[in-house]
């Protein structure tokens, strides 16, 4: 078992292997992610019941929650990759961070934007400097720093190293984003979905929400693989295996 995991880990670091496998996986993941997003959007926007307090405006939850949720998960995974890059010098980890950072930034932005659109009619304001909103903005700025840093180095290796360090510095912000609504007085309410206990959102609304979250996670998997393939092609274009591959096609 351990040996199999170790083998998988070594394979993951291999560009030709990843390029071959991802080519097969991408269409499948892409199809299911789009399918789930379409189903959950229609379900959430037209068929899930109207909320007793907020009315129909609450339906933006089907975009807001998946976006902010995935933006945090992407950052966690990037910091694991940053650790792997710094300790094992695995080039694939550098490719991973570079490819996923713009996706994470995009979803953090969607989360902030949809939150503002939601906040205006319900809370009465687009923005308030409470701990949840501010720490999410900090997360967005870390993403921008990671993206900006990629192009400020002459060599790929030093860029990946510096970016990994910045990623690790920002990971401390994530528990703050998550727990801010419990630790301090904020305008933003605490979480509605609970993994360990009972969720405070009724199941008729929760099921399309979970579907939309799954759809967005698959979408990130899909776009992440696409971006990583593009990054690998640009880094490895002069390598023997890549030339052989492109001449075969």
């Amino acid at each position, binding site marked *: 078992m351990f040996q199999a995991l170790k083998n998988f880990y070594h394979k993951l670091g291999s560009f030709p292997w990843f390029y071959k496998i991802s080519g097969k996986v991408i269409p499948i993941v892409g199809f299911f992610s789009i399918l789930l997003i379409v189903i959950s959007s229609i379900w959430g926007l037209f068929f899930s*019941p*109207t*909320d*007793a*307090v*907020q*009315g129909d*405006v*609450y339906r933006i*939850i089907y975009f807001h929650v998946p976006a902010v949720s995935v933006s945090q998960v992407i950052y966690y995974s990037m910091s694991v990759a*940053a*650790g792997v890059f*710094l*300790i*094992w010098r695995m080039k694939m980890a550098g490719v991973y961070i570079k490819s996923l950072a713009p996706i994470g930034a995009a979803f953090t932005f969607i989360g902030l934007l949809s939150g503002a659109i939601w906040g205006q*009619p*319900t*809370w*009465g*304001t687009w923005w*308030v*400097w*409470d*701990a949840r909103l501010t720490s999410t903005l900090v997360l967005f700025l870390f993403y921008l720093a990671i993206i900006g840093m990629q192009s400020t180095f002459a060599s790929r290796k030093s860029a990946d190293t510096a970016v990994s*360090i910045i990623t*690790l*510095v*920002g*990971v*401390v*912000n994530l528990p*703050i984003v998550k727990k801010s609504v419990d630790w*301090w*007085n*904020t*305008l933003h*309410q*605490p*979480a*509605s979905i609970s993994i360990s206990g009972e969720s*405070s*959102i*009724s199941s*008729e*609304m929760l099921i399309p929400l979970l579907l939309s979250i799954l759809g967005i996670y698959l979408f990130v998997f899909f776009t992440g693989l696409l971006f990583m393939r593009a990054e690998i092609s640009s880094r490895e274009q002069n390598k023997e295996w890549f030339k052989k591959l492109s001449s075969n096609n």
Partner: protein
Amino acid sequence: MKQHRLKRLYGVLFIVFCSALAFVLVYFAIRDNVNLFYSPSDLFESPPQGRNAIRAGGLVEIGSLRRSKDSLEIEFIITDLKKSIAVNYTGILPDLFKENAGVVATGYFDKNKMSLDAYQILAKHDENYVPKEVKKALEK
């Protein structure tokens, strides 16, 4: 783990530790301002000094809301179920503002009357989502 990798692992942990330390220090520097609002109990315990605007938050007490007949002026009481303060405000209210719901009011605090002269009212909603029909059925 090989020796040089172990060394780099310590480096990684050191980066995370330093960053966490920085966040903690910043938190201690601003800890009085991290909370978005004061609860009525906070205001009774240590009334704010000076003439700066503050935010007070809690629930709108049931039965305390008074609307003026010929203007947008309203009065209500914010409570945290232990202490309460009076609030007056003139202007448009957010959709979710109502009695027994969360509210955050920004304005100038009068220590003598324990009341807030608010210029902004924000509604705070809780984490519960219930279908309209279910709630109606429950109330019957």
